[in-house]
């Protein structure tokens, strides 16, 4: 017996859940906000979409399997598709290339049937064989594709990856359009298979020799040109499987991380949408016209000060809690970050399915902080070194925290290093405390694994060791009842909140600025720069029409 999962039913159910969650979030003041009223007009076709890849001045790779950078993800979805896709309307993953999904009775096998009208840009139909080949490529022995962790839970994946098996046992082709995936344990496959790193690619194009300079996918746009370090463009794919989409005839991404230049280009009307930095955000919110096109998103990233629990006095929970009580986050978010952040009330961010809207943040209570330090035998305070990068959200925040910490007797000294050096120092255990932004979604259990004592130091960076917490995660993972699973996830997040292995600071508020002639831009909480471009359309006022 199998349980059939209708993608539309999933969507409807999740939309309802998301609506309820949004109502709850709105009550807490954390709800993602779209400043301009949602479009009700009929989408128009034509024009050129002019977007931006805003996290660097180059793309790393046009092969979506071979990339490790957020920058490339902003572009990939225009050319490639995966089995699932992030649906901003329902705040969840939904099937994309898969028309039907059936889950087995034991909950570990998922049988998929692809839409029968999906084609690659080279004209060939996408079949189950392409899915099997793409996943097998990612897991090929000796490979180092970034999608390996996404697929390593498939039965037999590890054996294949290590060269001990000829094929992946858990991947089975049923017919031309159907296949099944069996996982070792209970997973939500959507979380694993929506990312561009698990895109479905055509074997003949990848093996053709020029895939890195002429990528072929089954996405809404056909690759046209890539000028390295400047732009990448595509043209509308007429055989795209979603009828009538994409709406735009062409797409172009400018590749740059210079936010001042992006601001000027957007104001000059040369970009249809862009990501805003802090200083531009303030100016845009104060401008009556520009503010209408702002889309504010609580991204699934949690900014925090991590603490090395193997270094005293951070092993003492009272000290960690004291730090959380000692600092006025509201002032820092308002004055330093210009309100471009949402106050953190746990590890899981507001858009996460595991977010607990009823949880209150640590209040600013220096007296309580002092009392906790007294209890911990640190009435005279203590000193520590905090590793930071020179960004506002790292060194800037530490400098803003310093007076608050000093008021309770704690002296924090900054050690400013480059981002890569910071990672090395954290992973090696050299850093005592550090500032970082962690991806905390969309899979809440994976996000909470950052405190799983069985994880390597590069994942459990605080060296948090709490078997009770590990057991909570295992129980949540092994539970098929969604309500019970959600309750366990929230319990685990609440546990981490109490144990405070980090100073909970904020969830990043990403802000997209859109022009008045652009419609259908979604607010993607997994990464704001990844816009679902097949749904974006330009009205008659667009200069590119």
């Amino acid at each position, binding site marked *: 017996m199998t349980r059939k999962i209708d993608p539309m039913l999933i969507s409807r159910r999740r939309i309802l859940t998301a609506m309820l969650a949004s109502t709850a979030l709105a009550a807490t003041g954390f709800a993602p906000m779209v400043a301009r009223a949602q479009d009700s007009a009929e989408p128009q076709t034509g024009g050129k979409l002019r977007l931006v890849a805003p996290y660097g001045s180059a793309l790393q790779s046009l092969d979506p399997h071979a990339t490790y950078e957020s920058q490339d993800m902003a572009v990939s979805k225009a050319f490639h598709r995966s089995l699932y896709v992030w649906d901003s309307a329902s705040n969840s993953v939904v099937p994309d290339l898969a028309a039907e999904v059936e889950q087995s009775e034991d909950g570990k096998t998922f049988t998929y049937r692809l839409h029968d009208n999906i084609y690659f840009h080279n004209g060939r139909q996408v079949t189950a064989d392409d899915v099997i080949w793409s996943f097998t490529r990612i897991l090929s022995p000796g490979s180092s594709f970034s999608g390996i962790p996404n697929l390593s839970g498939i039965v037999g994946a590890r054996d294949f990856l290590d060269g001990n098996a000829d094929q992946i046992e858990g991947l089975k082709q049923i017919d031309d359009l159907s296949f099944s995936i069996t996982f070792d344990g209970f997973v939500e496959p959507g979380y694993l298979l929506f990312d561009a790193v698990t895109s479905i690619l055509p074997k003949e194009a990848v093996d053709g020799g020029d895939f890195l300079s002429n990528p072929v996918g089954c996405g809404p746009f056909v690759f046209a040109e890539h000028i390295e370090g400047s732009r990448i463009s595509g043209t509308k794919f007429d055989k795209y499987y979603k009828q009538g989409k994409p709406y735009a005839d062409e797409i172009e991404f400018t590749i740059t991380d210079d936010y001042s230049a992006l601001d*000027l280009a957007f104001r000059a009307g040369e970009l249809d949408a862009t990501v805003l930095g802090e200083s531009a955000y303030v100016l845009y919110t104060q401008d009556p016209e520009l503010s209408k096109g702002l889309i504010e998103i609580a991204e699934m990233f949690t900014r925090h000060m991590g603490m090395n629990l193997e270094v005293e006095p951070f092993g003492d929970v009272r000290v960690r809690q004291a730090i959380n009580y000692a600092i006025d986050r509201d002032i820092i978010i308002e004055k330093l970050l210009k309100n471009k952040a949402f106050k953190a009330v746990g590890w899981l961010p507001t858009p996460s399915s595991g977010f607990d809207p009823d949880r209150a943040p640590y209040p600013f209570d220096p007296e309580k902080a002092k009392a906790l330090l007294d209890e911990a035998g640190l009435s005279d305070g203590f000193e520590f070194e905090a590793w930071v990068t020179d960004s506002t959200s790292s060194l800037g925040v530490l400098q803003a925290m310093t007076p608050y910490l000093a008021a309770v007797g704690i002296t924090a000294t900054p050690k400013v290093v480059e981002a890569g050096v910071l990672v090395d120092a954290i992973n090696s255990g050299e850093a005592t405390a550090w500032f970082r932004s962690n991806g905390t979604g969309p899979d809440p259990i994976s996000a909470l694994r950052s405190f799983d004592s069985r994880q390597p130091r590069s994942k459990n960076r605080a060296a948090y060791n709490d078997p009770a917490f590990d057991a909570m995660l295992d129980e949540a993972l092994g539970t098929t009842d969604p309500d019970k699973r959600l309750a366990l996830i929230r319990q685990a997040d609440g546990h981490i909140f109490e144990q405070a292995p980090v100073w909970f600071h904020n969830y990043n508020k990403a802000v997209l600025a859109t022009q008045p002639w652009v419609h259908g831009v979604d607010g993607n909480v997994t990464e704001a720069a990844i816009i679902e471009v097949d749904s974006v359309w330009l009205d008659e006022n667009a200069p590119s029409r």
Partner: protein
Amino acid sequence: MLQLLLRRLAQAALTVFIVISLVFVLFSVIPGTFTSSLQADKRDVSQDVIERLEDELGLNDPLPVRFANYVTDLAQGDLGVSYATRRPVSDMLSGRIWASFKLACAAIFFAVCVGLPLGFIAAIRQGSWIDTAAMTFAVSGLSIPGFWAGLLLMYLFSLKLHLLPTFGYGSGGLSHLILPAITLGIAPMALLARTTRAAVLETLNADFIRTARSKGMSERRLVTRHLARNAFVLVLTTIGLQFGSMLGGSVVIEKLFAWPGVGSLLIDSVGLRDIPAVQGAILVIVLFFLLINTLVDLAYLVVDPRIRYN
């Protein structure tokens, strides 16, 4: 001349070897690696993938082994494969060298066209308001940071006047080239203006100028035949040095204008600790500098026949 070229070639080979050795060793011993830079991105790359990547790229090999492999490949004309893109570095550079060269040529063209006349006029009108204005302009050009000048130009010509595109490469045409070229050319222009003024003033006081004047030579003939040519020998060195250093000096400008040049590749690669790509970009920058300086040395022979290289 052949002897000069051979000597320069030998010097260039030695310079290149020293530079690439220094860069390789430096990037191998300073904190941070390619894989740690990946983990610094917003996306968390798993430790399992990192370890596989290190094996695949040979990052765990001892430094002398990696260096020996690099030098051996380089001697065969192979610049290696970029850690980040997995593409041959030569392929990555080939697409960018032309863009950088074009930008450098346009920038030096702007610098020479504006800086030379400005300095010349300032010297001829020494002490006048023209001299004061020209030198104030020149000092300002040297003082303003390139990125700030670029933003001001973007603001004026793109946002306010809608005359030129803010950034990007476009189809490689003139409209996208003008703003980055002017931005990159401002500082060399200012330096050239000051150098030209000083060179012309020095030449004006030379004996042969006095002699020419006493012989009754017209001012126009004096300036074009004697003054300009002799002063230009002194200015040529500045032009050569400025032009030669433009590929390396355009890093910030290329990033600001989303210009697909070698400079922006270099800065991205440094951030990623992508040593093969860094080496390739630096190699191009060093070779360009050496080439321009050799050409300047040869140009001396044409401009001033008295100069001999022994």
